[in-house]
């Protein structure tokens, strides 16, 4: 048994870290946050050139053909850098669903464009009264056409294709098709823009395998938890640095146990979330029996831990942590927004209860 990264995985992680540090410094993140879409075509081309947009896409479809562990390592590093724009929506959400649900021809059509950097995509799921509960979805096709409203769709404003989860199946919709109206929503996370997508008699391509959706959502959920782990690691790092240099009463504040113990807890929460994410990735990759439970465990723990780590980070930074100028609030905003995406901790605890409390009757 070995529960650790392979040499190649370490290389992938380190080169992603280096890439994001160079191409996505905080000055870039702030510019993106102030822009309308948080999308930068130049950066997108570079992400494609690095193979990141096609990381899990089959080589036959123009991708790199790596696994779910590699996907979570990439997302962790993207989260650490607070990467703005549609990488997560395209690769981990829409990409995972297209991969799991589309037939071979459609998969090639959509995924090759993503791998080559020619297209961006996103997933439309939440309806006004559904949350992330699939059973509560109402939108369904009528004569092959979709009408209804989807909310909180990330990066829809820059997506070429919107993958729509409906009551009766999964559909691919061209974002420029007649009847599609995309309007920005004013979300808390400035680096991942949200949109309302209203559909009126929109022609949609139905994907074949509805059954693949659960696994795809588990992959997206695990990838999001990984992104949150990256954010937690960054908040921990900057907070520890601050605690070493900021002095009060003539000493670094990190020498006070009230501060030091909060840092220790941030470390414990970050490492525990990371363990849960890596395990979920391996379980999904290997098709283990507990893969769905593992994905829910990763997301429920990361959802609570990321918020908690953010709280501790700002608390330790004191007044500076509460300023607009300090970067922490950008991470704090992402943490809160990510908490609800693909189901919050309460949602996943109930899902886990169905798997482990109900299933054994």
């Amino acid at each position: 048994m070995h529960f650790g990264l392979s040499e190649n995985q370490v290389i992938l992680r380190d080169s992603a870290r280096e890439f994001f540090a160079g191409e996505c410094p905080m000055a870039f993140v702030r510019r993106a946050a102030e822009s309308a879409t948080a999308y930068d075509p130049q950066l997108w081309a570079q992400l494609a050139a690095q193979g990141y947009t096609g990381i899990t896409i089959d080589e036959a479809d123009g991708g790199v053909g790596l696994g779910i562990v590699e996907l979570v390592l990439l997302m962790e590093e993207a989260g650490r850098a607070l990467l703005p724009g549609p990488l997560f929506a395209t690769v981990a959400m829409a990409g995972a669903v297209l991969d799991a649900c589309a037939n071979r021809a459609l998969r090639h059509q959509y995924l090759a464009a993503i791998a080559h950097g020619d297209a961006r995509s996103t997933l439309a799921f939440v309806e006004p009264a559904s949350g992330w509960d699939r059973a509560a979805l109402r939108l369904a096709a009528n004569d092959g056409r979709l009408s209804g409203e989807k909310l909180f769709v990330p990066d829809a404003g820059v997506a070429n294709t919107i993958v729509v989860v409906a009551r009766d199946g999964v559909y691919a919709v061209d974002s420029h098709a007649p009847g599609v109206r995309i309007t920005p929503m004013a979300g808390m996370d400035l680096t991942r823009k949200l949109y309302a997508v209203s559909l009126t008699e929109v022609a949609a391509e139905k994907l074949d395998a509805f059954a693949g959706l659960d696994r795809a959502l588990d992959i997206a959920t695990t990838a999001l938890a990984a992104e949150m782990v990256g954010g937690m690691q960054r908040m921990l790092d900057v907070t520890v640095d601050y605690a070493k240099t900021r002095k009060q009463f003539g000493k670094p504040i990190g020498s006070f146990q009230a501060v030091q113990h909060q840092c220790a807890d941030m470390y414990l929460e970050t490492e525990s979330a990371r363990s849960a994410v890596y395990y979920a990735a391996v379980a999904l990759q290997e098709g283990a029996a507990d893969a769905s439970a593992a994905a829910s465990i990763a997301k429920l723990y990361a959802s609570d831990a990321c918020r908690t780590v953010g709280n501790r980070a700002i608390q330790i930074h004191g007044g500076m942590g509460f300023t607009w100028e300090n970067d922490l609030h950008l991470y704090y905003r992402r943490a809160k927004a990510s908490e609800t995406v693909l189901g919050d901790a309460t949602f996943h605890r109930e899902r886990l209860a169905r798997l482990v409390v109900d299933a054994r009757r």
Partner: protein
Amino acid sequence: MDLSLSLEETRFRDELRAWLEQHAPKDWEHRHDGSIEEHFAFLRSWQKTLYDGGWAGISWPREYGGRGASLMQQVIFWQELARVSAPPMANVIGLGMVGPTIIAFGTEAQKARFLPGILSADEIWCQGFSEPNAGSDLAGLQSDGRLDGEHFVVNGQKVWTSYGWAADWCELVVRTDPTLPKHKGLTVMLVDMKSPGIEVRPLRQMTGESEFTEVFFRDVRVPVANVVGKVNQGWDVSIGTLMHERGTFGAGLQITYQRNIERLIELSRTIERGGRPAAEDPVIRQKLAQCYAEVQIMRVNQMRAFSRISSTGVPGPEGSIQKIFWSELNQRLQQIAQELLGPYGQLDAADQHAIDHGAWSYGYLRARGNTIEAGTSEIQRNIIGHFVLGLPRSY
């Protein structure tokens, strides 16, 4: 990442499993007849059985009578023992701490004299570290050892000494040079508990048991030949001993917690709340699921840590998160048990209405000690803060 056992690990597990099937005592937990001495005799004979089967001291090198097991084999060992709810071993301190310390720092004569008795449980060991005024600040201990010819003469008091009442020998740390800085003047020595001048008093815990004792030393003569390592360099020896305390043992705890959360889930189907099974109560479901998730995270945290130690060779300070995690998780688990059981949670084994022979009442009280024993949560957070995160020392 490869989460499956290797061929060799599987073979080890299967061999152990088959052996345990034949030899592990069953239903011993709920036997309440007999005195504590009789119970201890039972634990001693269980260790002898393990010893005869070649399963005592599995982490010890073969040349000292151990099995030379790899770290992963040790993990499997504790998991399998927990899986069959095997009793603890009588000489848990000797096997887990004193033996490894003698192997690392002892003389050949000490190894030959003491190691066999530790393995066979013929000689039970305790550990004389903490004092009334030296708990977390161990290096502040005051028990005093003065050289007098070929002996040290020891005076002082030790406390929280587990198994002190049953012990034949004690790994004792005393101050042998009060003029040196506090970490420098300490010496570790092996003390015969039958020496004149030793008095052992039981220390009753809040659970009602007396696992611990206080041990008093009045002019106790300890041969110089019994010093482990060098005189006045006992701090390094002590730290070596304490590092073993946070070894692979936690792997067995995780299995126990897994069994406990599964038992709570089972109980939630029969215990009623508001006229329906508690398992259907949304609040209880949330709590059970959270606890179940944390038990799984404890497992994957351990798997990552063990894999890291396997490749780097030494347990690092990051092991402190395992200690914090298991101790605090057990307290949360026991609290959820209390909420689920309601008034029945408080009943101990003596009551005919008790659920699971009073295990949850005992478990709740016993868990309270978890964040104090084997290094308090505060000390573990200090270790993470200073040694892992590089923050300045807080004390």
